[in-house]
Each structure stands twice: as structure tokens, then as C-alpha cells.
């Protein structure tokens, strides 16, 4: 081992949470080191001889047969990552230990993934940036289950504004307060006079078609009527700036990515970086001159000071390249240590180190949005396969009294036809040629008359925190560097299944209202096939991994306090969606980013005090 370097703050993970922390601290001239497990592009956009730039991700994407979220990013056995194609049906009741990175203990498979490369999972996120509802912070109080947050919407509100500005979110506040929806449970108060840094991203032709087609529609749940309203979605994607705000272009080529140009490829990769990714915040962090990012350093352990219980050293394995297992073990120390390695990896590191777990809650309460899809053909050409993945949704059922009995959900309107449910067009056109025996003009007609009408909805259904849904570690399961693979226990309970059943009911009514020809099919062989009251439904992963080191009111029942600090170790802060005690119905990253800005402020104060 080499001699131990000293920093003000050591951050583990160069994803959005780590980048925000580094940028905020570097701007205040704190000396920061980020240790990042994956490989990186070092601020380059173009390849430079043998040094790869962001464009190398595009090359890999173009020739990848399965265009899954992780397709563009290097397959790196030294920092392995889960793939959606690893997920298997578990109805035979047996654990799956040797298929991909996760060890799946069931009873249901965990279907979500993340990315382990510099920049983290926002390299391939969609960019949806919704705020949570005020009632989402108090589920236990309002509905008698789930958990309350130790922080309220009102307290987080100013940090939402910071996060929306720093990420660069395009939306109109007057749409996003949901005042236009006649369901007070979903109304979100915005500060008087506040607006997002950029105007809303234009809604797709499909959105507008649905908006008109759904006028007057409502659904009934427990004798309550809920209007079905199409609302544009706030997105971390460059649009038309307001006031003197200037969009942040691509890292390594500022002229690119000034506005979304409609590449229709946000997931898995925006070719021009009009979509926000954490490389942008990392670049800002580096320009402070106080932040160093060290790639290919996998943190595996932490050591404590016996007397103060502070984290004394961070221990990592630095490897030379992705294809060999050569590595050196090194240590660093920081006055403060911030764990920002993503919900699952954070829990894994804490469990491996055996720290921060006096509550026994580390790894527990793992949540996601089981995402149920429905799909069909619109009666007319709606111009499918164009624009950002989703530009609008139906938020009407994000909240309401029904949450006592069943899960709330948000409806996402997909702009890319059947690409998610069926892999269209790449996976579906061969069937027209091989089995439907079409060629020439008939084949052309079959494609041009059907594909532009393809339509799908996604229902992001909430899960409640359940201590049995958890990430653990096991000596038997390690990667090639000897680091633990996540062992996952996961179940979709009846509360969520009831929400899926309700969602399907809403979808059926909506299809009937619009005259959609339904093609939805849930097969028993689907990895995420579950039943509820005799009917079958299938879920997919949303990539929204939440709740593995929850914040709470006391050290007995939670891992971090309201300030995002470990209850057990005074110089250890955790950031990321793992801190969130409930998931509710919003994609979690904006809320997590708001919490991270708040956490950075707390770290700064703590540094000043010591």
C-alpha cells in the first residue's frame, strides 16, 4: 500500500449525486477527490487516437444488436453492471446466481439496471424531472402505511429550484403545478413567480392528439371521479432558454447539444448531449480547480477510527485496464467521506465494510417503479418513433384517497411506438419478411401503414418500503476483482399489484375512448409476470432504484438523518436515491438531486465547523 493521501472530501462515485457534491464543494475551494469505479472519456467528445471520447459510445451503440440501455457503454468485468437482458422469469422458485451481475433470490426478479462508467446512470436516463407531491412526503400520516420523510415538500422546495436550474430542466411552472387537474391531491405548490430555466419541450404530435381525444374523459375509483389530463413532462433536456439562462452544451464540444434536435435516442444515449448527463456537472466541478476525478478505482471497503467512529480511510482497487484483473489496493482519507455510488452499490460498500448499520436498515427497503406497458395501434397515423422518448404524461392518478388500498401511478406516453414492448422496428420487421412472406410493395405498405400508428403507454406504479426487499452480500458471490456482487431479494406485493390492475383498467377505458386497437399481451413466461385476483400482468424495471439506506427520524429505524448524514459516523454522508424512504410516482432523480444540493450545503457547514 502506498502512503495515504488527504483530502477535504472524498466522494465515491462520479454519477449525478457525486458530481453535484463535487461541484458544490469545489466551488467553495474544498479539495475534493472523486473515486470512480468505471472507465471514462476524460472530457473528450471526439476520439483522439487511442483515447476514446463520447463518440466511441455512439459507435458501440450503432453496431450493438440489442439496443438496451447499457448497450453503448463498455462491458467492464472489473466494474460489472446489470443488464436488462439478464432478467429471467423466476416462477420455478429457484434463485438465479449465474446470469449477469445480480444474484436474484426472488421471489420476483428485480428488473432494473444502472451504469458503471464515469457519468453514471444519467448517461442513459430519459431525463424526466418531476417533483414529488406534498402528500408523498407523508404517506404514513395520510394513508397509514409506508413511511413519512423527515423533510417536507416546503423545506425541499428551494432545493428543487436549485436542482432544476443546475440540471437544466425545460418546463412551464403553470403546467407543472397541476392546478388544471381537478384532483387536489396532485396539486404541487410552486413559489410565486418561479419558472423553470427553459420553456417546456414541445409536446409530440401524439401528445396533442391524445390531449384532444381525451377531452372529457374521467375514471372512477371508489366512487371518486378523476379527470384524465395530458400534461407536458418536465425534462432535463435543452430547449428554449428563459431570461438570461444559457443551456449547457456537450462536454468536449459546446456547440453541440444546445437544443434537443430530435435524435429519438435519449435512452440509451443522446448523440449530442442535449439531454443532461452528469458529465456536464463533472466538467463544471473540474473547472473549479479543486476537484480530481480518478477513474478505474473501485471502492471496496472503509476503515473507522476506533475512538471517534469517523471513517478514517477509504480503500479502493485501482485497475489498469478492463480486460485484465491487475489492480493495486490504495487508501485515501478525507475529513468528510461521501458515498455516491448509486443505491445498490452504496449499500453493498457499507455492508462490506460492516459500518453505518446499527439500525439494520442498510440494503433494506429496495424499491423501483414496476412499469407495466400497454400498447396498440391508433386509428390514424400519429407519427410514432419521433422525438424524445416521452414528452407528456397523465399525472391525474399520482395521488388520491385510493392510496389507502392500492398503489398510485403515473402514466407515461411513449413517443417511440412499440420499441419498448416489442423492440420495433428492428425485432419486428424480420417477421414480416420471414413469416408473413411479404416483399416489395406489399412489405412497404405493411410497414408504412402500421408503424406510424404504433402507440404505447407506460404505467409507473409505486411500491412501499418493505424491509424484506433488500440488497445483501454473500462470500460466495464476487466479481473478478473480488468485490461483492449484489444479492437481491425482491417481491412485488399486493398493494402494487392492485395498482397494476387499476392501471390496466384505466388503460382499457382509455383505449376504448380513443378507439385504439389493443395488442397488449402479458405472457406467463415474461420475467416480470405476476397475478392479481386471477388476472396476469407484467412489469418491467424503470431504473428507479430507491431506498437502500433510508433517511428517517431516528437512528433505530433509519440509516441517515435529515441532513443526509450517517447516524453512526459523524463524517460520513450518503447521497443518491437510496436515501429516499418512499418512491411514490415521480422518477426519483430530481428529488434526489435536490436532496444532494441540500446535503452539499450541510457538508460545507460541517467542514466550516471542524
Amino acid at each position: 500500500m502506498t502512503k495515504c493521501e488527504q483530502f477535504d472530501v472524498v466522494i465515491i462515485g462520479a454519477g449525478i449525486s457525486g458530481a453535484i457534491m463535487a461541484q458544490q464543494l469545489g466551488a467553495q475551494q474544498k479539495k475534493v477527490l472523486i473515486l470512480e469505479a468505471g472507465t471514462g472519456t476524460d472530457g473528450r467528445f471526439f476520439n483522439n487516437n487511442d483515447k476514446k471520447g463520447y463518440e466511441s459510445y455512439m459507435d458501440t451503440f450503432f453496431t450493438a444488436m440489442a439496443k438496451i440501455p447499457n448497450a453503448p457503454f463498455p462491458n467492464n468485468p472489473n466494474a460489472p453492471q446489470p443488464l436488462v437482458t439478464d432478467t429471467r422469469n423466476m416462477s420455478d422458485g429457484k434463485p438465479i446466481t449465474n446470469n449477469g451481475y445480480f444474484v436474484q433470490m426472488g421471489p420476483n426478479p428485480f428488473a432494473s439496471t444502472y451504469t458503471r462508467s464515469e457519468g453514471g446512470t444519467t448517461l442513459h436516463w430519459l431525463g424526466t424531472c418531476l417533483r414529488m407531491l406534498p402528500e408523498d412526503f407523508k404517506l404514513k400520516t395520510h394513508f397509514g402505511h409506508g413511511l413519512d420523510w423527515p423533510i417536507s415538500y416546503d423545506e425541499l422546495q428551494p432545493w428543487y429550484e436549485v436542482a432544476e436550474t443546475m440540471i437544466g430542466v425545460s418546463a412551464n411552472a403553470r403546467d407543472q403545478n397541476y392546478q388544471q387537474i381537478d384532483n387536489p391531491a396532485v396539486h404541487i405548490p410552486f413559489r410565486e413567480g418561479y419558472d423553470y430555466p427553459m420553456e417546456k419541450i414541445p409536446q409530440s404530435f401524439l401528445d396533442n392528439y391524445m390531449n384532444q381525444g381525451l377531452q372529457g374523459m374521467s375514471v372512477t375509483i371508489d366512487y371518486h371521479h378523476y379527470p384524465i389530463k395530458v400534461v407536458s413532462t418536465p425534462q432535463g433536456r435543452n430547449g428554449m432558454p428563459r431570461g438570461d439562462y444559457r443551456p449547457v452544451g456537450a462536454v468536449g464540444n459546446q456547440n453541440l447539444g444546445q437544443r434537443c434536435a430530435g435524435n429519438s435516442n435519449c435512452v440509451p444515449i443522446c448523440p449530442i448531449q442535449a439531454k443532461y448527463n452528469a458529465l456536464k456537472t463533472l466538467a463544471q466541478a473540474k473547472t473549479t480547480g479543486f476537484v480530481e476525478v480518478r477513474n478505474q478505482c473501485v471502492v471496496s471497503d472503509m476503515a473507522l477510527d476506533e475512538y471517534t467512529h469517523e471513517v478514517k480511510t477509504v480503500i479502493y482497487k485501482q485497475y489498469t485496464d478492463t480486460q485484465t484483473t491487475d489492480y493495486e489496493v490504495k487508501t485515501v482519507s478525507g475529513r468528510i467521506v461521501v458515498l455516491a455510488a448509486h443505491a445498490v452499490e452504496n449499500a453493498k460498500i457499507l455492508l462490506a465494510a460492516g459500518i453505518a448499520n446499527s439500525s439494520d436498515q442498510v440494503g433494506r427497503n429496495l424499491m423501483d417503479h414496476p412499469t407495466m406497458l400497454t400498447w396498440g395501434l391508433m386509428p390514424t397515423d400519429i407519427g410514432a418513433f419521433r422525438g424524445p422518448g416521452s414528452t407528456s404524461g397523465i399525472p391525474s392518478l399520482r395521488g388520491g384517497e385510493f392510496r389507502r388500498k392500492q398503489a398510485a401511478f403515473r402514466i407515461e406516453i411513449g413517443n417511440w411506438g412499440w420499441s419498448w414492448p416489442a423492440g420495433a422496428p428492428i425485432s419486428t420487421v424480420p417477421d414480416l419478411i420471414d413469416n408473413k412472406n411479404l416483399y416489395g410493395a406489399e412489405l412497404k405498405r405493411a410497414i408504412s401503414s402500421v408503424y406510424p400508428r404504433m402507440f404505447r403507454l407506460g404505467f409507473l406504479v409505486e411500491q412501499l418500503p418493505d424491509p424484506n426487499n433488500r440488497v445483501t452480500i454473500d462470500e460466495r458471490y464476487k466479481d473478478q476483482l473480488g468485490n461483492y456482487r449484489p444479492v437481491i431479494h425482491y417481491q412485488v406485493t399486493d398493494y402494487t399489484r392492485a395498482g397494476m390492475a387499476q392501471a390496466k383498467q384505466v388503460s382499457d377505458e382509455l383505449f376504448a375512448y380513443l378507439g385504439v386497437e389493443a395488442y397488449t399481451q402479458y405472457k406467463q413466461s415474461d420475467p416480470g409476470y405476476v397475478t392479481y385476483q386471477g388476472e396476469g400482468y407484467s412489469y418491467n424495471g424503470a431504473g428507479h432504484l430507491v431506498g437502500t439506506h433510508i433517511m428517517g427520524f431516528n437512528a433505530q429505524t433509519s440509516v441517515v438523518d435529515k441532513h443526509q448524514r450517517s447516524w453512526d459516523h459523524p463524517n460520513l454522508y450518503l447521497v443518491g436515491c437510496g436515501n429516499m424512504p418512499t418512491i411514490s410516482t415521480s422518477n426519483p432523480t430530481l428529488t434526489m438531486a435536490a436532496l444532494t444540493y441540500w446535503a452539499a450545503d450541510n457538508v460545507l457547514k460541517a467542514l466550516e465547523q471542524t
Partner: protein
Amino acid sequence: MYRLDDFYDLSATLTDYPVTRLIGTGVGNEYNQTLSQWVRQDVLDELYHCFSQLERNNDGQVCPQALRHQLLSNEKYGPIARNIIKMWYLSIWYKMTDNWSMTYGIPAYSSPVIGVESPTPEDYIISNNAYIQGLVWPLMGSHPMGAKQPGYGTWSDAPLNSIASIHLQ
């Protein structure tokens, strides 16, 4: 380039796109090369001969029924024809059956480029550029996902599918 003109001729009939449109993609050479990489030359010769007979027998216009009878349903030619269509639309070379490859193909293990153990390679995308030129994208009224960006806000416009699929000829 082996019998490129014949390749375009056959492709035009199989896809119903004029040869000029196919040449315009700029990747016809790559597809033709791919074909010669996996299909024996004498088999290609026979295929083109069969096709030219169909043209000749019907004054240059291939009769759809004859095409189905002589070519698409033929165990030797059918798989080649379908793979040609799939290359144009999706820019992917699809694995032939082992049996077909052993009889009519150039087994992959004899190829210095790929050198796999099975007689046929797995499905693969022919090249970056070929992916971008796939005919399926404009036919759907769209663009290849991740390339040929149509510009800010274009997704709000009414679809122009009919223009892309018909007038482009």
C-alpha cells in the same frame, strides 16, 4: 465488386425501391460484399441466372407469382432473397441455418475475418453507417434512432409518412 449490377437489379425487385434510391443509400457495396462473404459464388451465379430468366420470360417485368414460385419458395434462393431484403431494411446480416450454410454458404470457420466455430456467424449489424441508412426508418416516417436528427420540435409536426414512403421514389 462481384456482380454489383445484378445485386442492385434483384434488390430493386425484392424491395420495390428503384435502383437509384438503393444506390443513394451509399451502402449497397457493403451489402453486396457481405453477401459474397457468406454465400458461395456459384450459388450467387445461379441465383442471378434464375432471376434474369424471370425477367426475360416476362419482358423485363418480373411476375410476382413466378418470383414466389421460382425464387422465394426455393430452399436454396429463398433464404438469400429474404436476407437481402433484411439487409436493406435493417442493415443486419441474419444467421442462416447451419444446414443451409453447410450446403450453399461459406462456413464462418473458414473466414479469416470472423473465424467462429459454428458454420454461421450470429446476427450482426453490418456497419455504423449501414445502420444509419436502413430503409425502414424513412418508410416509417422517421429517421434512424440516434442519427439524421430532424431538428428541434419536429416531433410536434403532423407526420409526413406518405411523403417519405411514396414520393421519395
